[in-house]
């Protein structure tokens, strides 16, 4: 159906609806959207405005830039966003295909698979920290038993420590994104696949010509959203490395919380404003995509 014919049909139904009911479709639309608009006005516009007001003093940014860990933190945040999120989303896309298969054990696995998302962060990440302890942790004990050599001092190396924070992040949030992409896949009409398999298309072709085109918007937007959500994720870093060794693995979220702990609300808010250059293009890009 072309755009114009949809348009005509829509106008038709609207007219008919208006004649049969007291309220126009437009009015109904407004009613349906009102609850959200109220929430948005009262709980988004006001707090966000207030956050900016708290961060209004230019002196704060001078102070922030003077913090010696600031630059490193900004770079870490960027790495975290680019690497962790892309890896996570690609794996999630792949696994969402896996979970569409109807096997009893896949169903069981799917339930187990959501558990990481359901466990609270504090015990899980502390448990992982214990696992990684180089002297008595399970991993290094195992390495020692198998190779009679010492395992690495996991969290003492900034690259390794940051990578492990990313692993923790991926472990914790992979189920969610897989689930969303799975819902996206399930929304693709089966007929398309049936038609394709009659044509003898292989799995790659099915993915390339059916799955990907219908999932692309969802996938890209999820990636953008995940990046935005992750700017505020402080658990994976805070509970695992605490920003260590020597403050080399901080991200903007952990730095912000550190200021909050010293009652430097202004600086904490300024950290957000500084984070905006990371978020802004993402939000812009996202809004643009959605407007198409």
């Amino acid at each position, binding site marked *: 159906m072309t755009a114009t014919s949809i348009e005509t049909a829509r106008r038709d139904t609207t007219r008919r609806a208006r004649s049969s009911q007291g309220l126009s479709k437009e009015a*109904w639309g407004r009613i349906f959207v009102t609850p959200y608009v109220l929430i948005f006005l009262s709980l988004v516009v006001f707090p966000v405005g207030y956050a900016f007001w708290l961060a209004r003093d230019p002196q704060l940014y001078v102070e922030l830039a003077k913090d010696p860990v600031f630059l490193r933190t900004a770079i870490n945040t960027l790495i975290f966003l680019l690497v962790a999120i892309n890896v996570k989303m690609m794996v999630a896309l792949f696994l969402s295909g896996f979970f569409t298969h109807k096997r009893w054990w896949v169903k069981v696995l799917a339930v187990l698979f959501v558990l990481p998302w359901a466990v609270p962060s504090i015990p899980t990440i502390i448990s992982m920290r214990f696992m990684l302890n180089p002297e008595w942790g399970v991993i290094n004990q195992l390495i020692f038993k198998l190779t009679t050599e010492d395992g690495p001092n996991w969290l003492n190396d900034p690259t390794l420590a940051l990578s492990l924070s990313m692993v923790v992040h991926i472990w914790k949030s992979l189920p969610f994104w897989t689930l969303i992409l799975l819902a996206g896949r399930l929304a693709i009409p089966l007929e398309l696949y049936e038609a394709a398999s009659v044509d003898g298309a292989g799995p790659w072709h099915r993915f390339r010509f059916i799955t990907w085109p219908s999932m692309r918007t969802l996938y890209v937007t999820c990636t953008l959203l995940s990046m935005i959500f992750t700017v505020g994720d402080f658990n994976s870093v805070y509970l695992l490395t605490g920003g260590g060794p020597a403050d080399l693995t901080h991200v903007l979220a952990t730095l912000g919380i550190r200021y909050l702990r010293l009652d430097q609300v202004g600086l904490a808010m300024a950290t957000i404003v500084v984070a905006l250059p990371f978020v802004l293009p993402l939000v812009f890009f996202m809004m643009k995509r959605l407007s198409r």
Partner: protein
Amino acid sequence: MNTRKLLRNVSLESGLLLIGIPVFLWTMIPLYHMFLFAISPKDAAFSGQLWPTNPTLRNFEIVFQQKHHFLYNFWLQMWNSLWISSATAVITLMVASAAAFAISRLRMKGGRLVMNFALFTYFIPAAFLAVPMYKTMTIYRLQGSDLSLILAMVTIASPYAIWILRQASDKLPVELDEAALIDGASPFQLFRLVYIPLMVPSLIAVGTYALLLAWNEYLYAFLLLQSEKTLTLPVALGNFLSADDSPWELLMTAGFIYALPPAAIYYAFRRYMSSGLTAGAVKG
């Protein structure tokens, strides 16, 4: 022909296993390590063993019977978590599905604008909005009530929920609405009788999302809730971080137990997940 089909089946099955086993290990190893703490006697888990020499269920008993200082309100706090996250999920679903319906099906004017503004919520990461949000709740005189946390969680969950639901509902055939409207159904009936049933898989995904968002929320929960009796469990688990020498095995046990209700809820609803759209499409 038959052998080829068999061969293809075998390779498909083994391919699935080849994915399934690593997924299983990846998911379970950290959980197993937590579980190891949960079934180990005090301090025994720190020896780096793969299975405790004297496994015990004592930790579960202590948690279930609330016999530790940090866990005196375990069941109450579990209930608080359940109530707050269920309320968040339900309200989010109502608000978001209504908004998505208005934007996607009723094609109301300014729908796109609403969508864009909604996504603006994520302009500032939630973790940073905590202090302003507290201020806002104080102004509305809601600080300390569970409603404040529910509303905050709905605020954070809704934009994403609306967006996902809009995505899914854009894929529904337009003819469905038209048929219903010609039959004389009001948009409200259309929403309730046609739209909602067709959206089930996405509603489950989004509902689980909202539920778990509130279930594991830490920062907002400790800022917005006030007395020990109204706290959710993740905040109470923060007590274990309050000194340098905590009963870690109880922390792990409680954390492990805490993961089960949402998994059960998800399991209960999961079977609807694959049914929704495909079944609806056949009917339509």
